[in-house]
């Protein structure tokens, strides 16, 4: 945790609850829950942002190494190459690797939308229609010496009504712990339950 400078948590607008949790590796996460309407909920998991400390540490390490090579080889191309590599590496890292927020938008009777927002502002979205969703469950996996819990969406198999054709894991880069996952699971199930009630009530008409 940061010692001296601790940033105040960002204000959330009214109607939004935010709670701190931890990821599987111990990093702090923030879960933001927002209810747009009776059948629409948004759950967003925010990860810690890129720290200036680590960025300057990596940059100075690379530049010191390049300077060392320059002193040994007397070739100034090494220095410009190092600057170029640092810039390109930073752009690639921010645009393709560093995920700032992972969110789940559940709209009853339309579908579930999974969004990952990267540090450079890029958002990659997948929308799964409700007719393809069988259920949302928490699965456990054994990874090396740890047992990890992860939330996943089970998709229906068109041929076999009881079978599962695909498993879509959620929150893969944040990897929240079980308490956070249970909150998300309860929120999702409340909305998924509504679709099970609806056909029954329409039969009763």
């Amino acid at each position, binding site marked *: 945790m940061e010692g001296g400078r601790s940033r105040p948590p960002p204000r959330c607008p009214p109607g939004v609850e935010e709670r701190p949790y931890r990821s599987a590796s111990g990093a702090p996460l923030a879960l933001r829950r927002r209810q*747009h*309407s*009776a*059948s*629409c909920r*948004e759950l967003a998991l925010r990860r810690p942002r890129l720290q200036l400390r680590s960025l300057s540490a990596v940059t100075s390490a690379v530049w010191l190494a390049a300077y060392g090579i320059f002193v040994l080889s007397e070739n100034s191309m090494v220095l410009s190459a190092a600057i170029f590599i640092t810039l390109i590496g930073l752009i690639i890292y921010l645009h393709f690797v560093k995920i700032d927020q992972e969110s789940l*938008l559940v*709209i*009853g*009777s*339309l579908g579930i*939308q999974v*969004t990952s927002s990267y540090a450079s502002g890029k958002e990659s*979205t*997948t*929308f799964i*229609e409700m*007719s*393809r969703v069988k259920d949302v469950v928490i699965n456990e996996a054994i990874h090396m010496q740890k047992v990890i819990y992860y939330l996943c969406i089970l998709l229906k198999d*068109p041929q076999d009504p009881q079978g599962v054709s695909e498993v879509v894991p959620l929150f893969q880069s944040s990897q929240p712990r079980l308490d956070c996952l249970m909150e998300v699971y309860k929120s999702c199930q409340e909305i998924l339950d509504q679709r099970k009630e*609806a*056909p029954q009530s*329409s039969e009763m*008409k």
Partner: protein
Amino acid sequence: MVLKVFFPSCCSSAESGILIGRWISEQNSAVVLAVVHFPFIPVQVKQYLSELQRVTKVNVSVLGSWNNSKQEKEESLSEFLEDLGTIFSHEPWIQISKEGDSKFWSCSTLQKRSNNHREEEIILVYYDQRKVMLSCLHPPLDTGASTAHEAEDASRLSAIFDTVAKSKILFMTDKYDDGPIKLTHWQSDGVEASIIVELMKQASVPACMLLTFLLSLISGACKSRMLKFWPLSFLWSKLSTCEQLSHRLQHLQVISSNKKAQNQTQLMRKANIFVSLLIDVALGILLMSWLYRKNRIGHLADTLIPVADHVAEELQDLLQWLMGAPAGLKMNRALDQVLGRFFLYHIHLWISYIHLMSPFIEMILWYVGLSACLGLTVALCILSDIVALLTFHIYCFYVYGARLYCLKIYGLSSLWRLFRGKKWNVLRQRVDSCSYDLDQLFIGTLLFTILLFLLPTTALYYLVFTLLRLLVVIVQGLIHLLVDLVDSLPLYSIILRLCRSYRLAAGVKFRVLEQQDGKPLRLLMQINPLSYGSVVQTYRLPTYSCYPKDSWTSLCKKLFLGELIYPWKHKGEKQD
């Protein structure tokens, strides 16, 4: 169940009227296509809709009413609109009303048949009509699917995209038309068209006919009996330039055909082939202008002979090294000398042949370089063929070395079996025991010893020439890889994905807009474009060459046994 209304964002500022569109009852959703304004005669509206249904095969009907009051809520208008529900009977009758410039609309439904007036939740989804109409959802539905299954299996999204795309004819009437019906949709301000596109469409018909005529002439000439004689047909099949030219001819035939493209895939394929040909020819002409400037072709021809000489000299040095004591290994003197002298004589013949050709090289190269205007791929294929021709002697040496080695290995394995008293049964394809006579055993053992002690020499020659041959094969392979890349890259699709990303849709994404309590949920539906990797994978053009199907283990086995390897087999060639 929740009612979903898909409303086009272009109709947000339309005048009051009635909504027409399609009602999808299985999904409880309504797709609004346009707004019909007052005054209208209900009978004419019904006629228009049935006509539309007949033409587009989309079940278009009146869905509800739209009340856009600029001032305060007009009670009389809202009652009038409710009464309209009795004229156009539709279950449920959707009423949307907007006050002034407010973003939050109120939406309600009238259900006449149901007894309990349950308040069902309404979701309002805005969509961009033009983009949804032009876009194509991937993966595309099979056109062969029967209509019975289509209604069940069709996902919600493809149903919506389908509805909007098929109603193209509805969007052709704009507000300047003097019809009985006044509509508002995305094109109601006037249909836009480009003069250049129209001119090109008109010019393309005679151009296609001319091209088809020329192509029929060329393919007729190619199929003539003269070119089918054995030496010529063998030569054509070995040269990769001819393969590439026939491949491009096929492409030209596809483009110049008169039939319109049936569906999206065919259209994209035609467009990709056209752009690929264009870029190919442009790059080829660029290369040609670079080559012919400052007489680079002349310089190239001048350096070709010295390079061939240099290669031959290096080979001679290599053979002298092998005839001595290469890498400290002791060779059999007599066999070494025989093989070495044989290959040296071969090189001598090759050099004399090259020197005989040298006065004509520059002229041949000059004319061959002109064919680069047919495309960069043709130029690269010519380069690959020149490399193959110049290293023909290496290929010959490889074949001699491989055959000799193969013979030796088979002889050794057969005599080894004789040594142990066994024999290969050709009928049963297995090893059987056999009793040999004494003189058979004696001669067999003698031959075995001779072959065994001569093995290192042959093996070394085989190894050296196989490595050289593999080097040449790798160079040719890289050139062919580049040719395949230019051939199969779907450039038009990639540029479309870059500039008009909504046309290639992988799916949709929803954004939640500002909400207000008591009003329906507002969502914005946007198109989620396909990723570049999937674009390339879906629209790749097929190529004619197939990469080696041998796995690494079978390749190593063939090399060990001395069997000849043919790395590049074209489709349609018989396997030896």
